[in-house]
């Protein structure tokens, strides 16, 4: 096989799982071709480097620039404009909603102060720590109805990323975002726009686009909290799932969107909230102008699982093996199954021996083969599997000439595996071979030892 073909196979190995034969071909070729071995190493290191290139966080100004541009450059057809007049407002309203949510989270009571009663507190925008009951109230407007407590906003969920960008200027600018011209600026909003605003607000929160989220808040809510306070409040929430149950218009012409919310925390616990978000037109854009959200289930945070995954023990593993001919060598895999009840890790290179039918090890020289270029631990779930790839070459028992093959090993062979950190060996239960005789590699050079090249542990099947 020529170098270009081998390099193509190496390349394809980054897109699909190669067959045992293909892997054997690569291993065989790169053993004798320094140029392709360097290619393989450079490609593996380089592509891994591309994957690990650090990410940058877009500046908040990009959001504003795009929205400013779209507001002055008509894009939608007249029909689309008419159809979406309210929807355009919705974008701004989403911004307002985000801020509202955040506000709720900022002010809080200590956790555990109540396991039954929803808690409402007064405060400013933003969110504090996971250990706080995240509810705050803003008395801005009279409630439309007694049960629509529209005076508070809660922020649920937190994030680990706090944008360092300055507080964006929002409000009026966003009112015209996506509006093709002044004449199309909406003067009213509808139920759909209000719901879109709430959805977009949570969407932005989940994407950690806090500038966008903050922009969905009305002026009064923003005045209660700076952008940085808002963003820094999201430190513990992993994901918010919002469900809108009803949307009603109140006597002020605002829309009260009733939701319940499941906020997944970074520690794995889930907090449940319910409440109302109030969406109204503000300076020509839909904004979240108020909200009231309460935490339904104050609970003691579940301690994070800190127990590291232990190394696999041979007593919790079983093994099977198989191999086939590949360019004169024999290539195959030993598969290890975790028979225990807990995940465990395998790392390094196992000691492997091939035994004849009487249990006597064949005279082989083990060498280490690099397949993945790294020695990362492989975590094996209960009943999960890992594998060890190997190549057996140059089998030249007495009387075998170079370029020929020895007779198959009568009675078959079995494989013995010893983990790097143990002395106890695992042995395959059944012997390997056809008709109880095992095929063997061809003899390349009788003056050289037979080699067994063994790779490190890999996930099985490969991801």
């Amino acid at each position, binding site marked *: 096989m020529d170098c270009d073909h081998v*390099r*193509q196979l190496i*390349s394809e190995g*980054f*897109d699909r799982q190669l067959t045992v034969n293909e892997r054997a071909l690569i291993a065989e070729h790169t053993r004798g071709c320094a140029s392709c071995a*360097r*290619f393989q190493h*450079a*490609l593996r*290191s*380089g*592509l891994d*480097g*591309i*994957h*690990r*290139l*650090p*990410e*940058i966080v*877009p*500046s908040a*100004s*990009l*959001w504003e*620039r*795009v*929205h400013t*541009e*779209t507001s002055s*450059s008509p*894009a*939608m*057809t007249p029909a*689309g*404009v008419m*159809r*979406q007049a309210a*929807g*355009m407002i*919705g*974008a701004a309203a*989403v911004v307002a909603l985000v801020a509202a949510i955040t506000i709720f989270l900022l002010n809080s009571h200590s956790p555990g102060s109540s396991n039954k009663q929803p808690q409402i507190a007064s405060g400013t925008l933003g969110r504090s720590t996971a250990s706080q009951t995240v509810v705050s109230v803003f008395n801005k407007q009279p409630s439309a109805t007694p049960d629509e407590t529209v005076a508070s906003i809660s922020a649920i969920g937190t994030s680990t990323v706090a944008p360092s960008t300055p507080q964006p200027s929002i409000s009026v600018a966003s009112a015209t*975002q*996506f509006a093709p011209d002044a004449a199309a600026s909406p003067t009213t909003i509808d139920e*759909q*726009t209000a*719901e*879109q605003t709430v*959805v*977009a607000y*949570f*969407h*932005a929160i989940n*994407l950690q*686009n806090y500038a*966008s989220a903050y922009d969905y808040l009305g002026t009064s809510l923003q005045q209660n909290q700076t952008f940085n306070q808002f963003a820094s409040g999201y430190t513990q929430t992993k994901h918010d799932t919002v*469900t*809108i149950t*009803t949307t009603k218009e109140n006597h002020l012409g605002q829309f009260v969107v009733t939701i319940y919310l499941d906020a997944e925390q970074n520690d794995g616990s889930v907090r449940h909230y319910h409440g109302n978000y109030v969406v109204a037109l503000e300076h020509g854009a839909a904004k979240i102008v108020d909200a009231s959200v309460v935490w339904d289930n104050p609970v003691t945070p579940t301690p994070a699982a800190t127990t590291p995954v232990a190394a696999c023990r041979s007593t919790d593993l079983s093994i099977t093996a198989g191999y086939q001919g590949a360019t004169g060598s024999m290539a195959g895999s030993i598969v290890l199954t975790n028979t225990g009840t807990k995940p465990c890790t395998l790392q390094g290179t196992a000691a492997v021996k091939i035994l004849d039918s009487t249990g006597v090890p064949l005279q082989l020289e083990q060498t280490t083969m690099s397949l993945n270029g790294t020695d990362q631990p492989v975590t094996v779930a209960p009943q999960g599997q890992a594998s060890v790839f190997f190549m057996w070459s140059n089998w030249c028992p007495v009387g075998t000439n170079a370029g020929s093959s020895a007779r198959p090993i009568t009675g078959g062979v079995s494989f013995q595996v010893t983990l790097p950190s143990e002395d106890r060996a695992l042995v395959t239960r059944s012997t390997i071979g056809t008709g109880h005789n095992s095929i063997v590699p061809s003899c390349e050079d009788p003056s050289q030892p037979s080699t067994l090249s063994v790779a490190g542990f890999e996930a099985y099947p490969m991801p």
Partner: protein
Amino acid sequence: MERAQWGAVVMDERGLLDRAQAGNSAAFTALFDQYQRPIVNYLYRMVRDREVAEDLAQDTFLKAYRAIERTDGELNFRAWIYRIATNTAMSYFRRKRLVQWIPFGPGTPDRGKDLRLADRIGESELIEQALAKIGPSHSSVLLLRHHQGLSINEIADTLQIKSNAAKVRLFRARKAFAQAYEVLAAEQEHA
């Protein structure tokens, strides 16, 4: 707004795209929120300048905004937005006359002073230099696959070529990149 019987709001990308194609600007905003970070990062790795990357990202989203109503219902938004970003970046390179094939290898004049900086550069810089060496045509396909995580089919969609052609493009890009990386790494080691 789509609702299940029990009132849940559906927020999947397909729903957002359908609404954006129907002219819903709020839905487009949500799509922008979702893609602005990967697109900015993709462009940043192409042009290696943050300010330029954000300018190109702005152009990308504005082009998308103006065209989305003319797209069909089967649009793969992810591939489409990367296509616009790639074309925008290529136009930028053409404007700047930066599209060029830079030979490398033993004895080529290009292995000069910048490579002697290798001992001061980290792994990321080494990768970035290797990407710069192979030119935007190769680097774009590598970044789409290995930095942005697009599948072969998505890359084919992005580049508007067949899947087999995408595989060939990827292989050629990898060969060029491995060679550049090997040379730069050797320089770094021996400098």
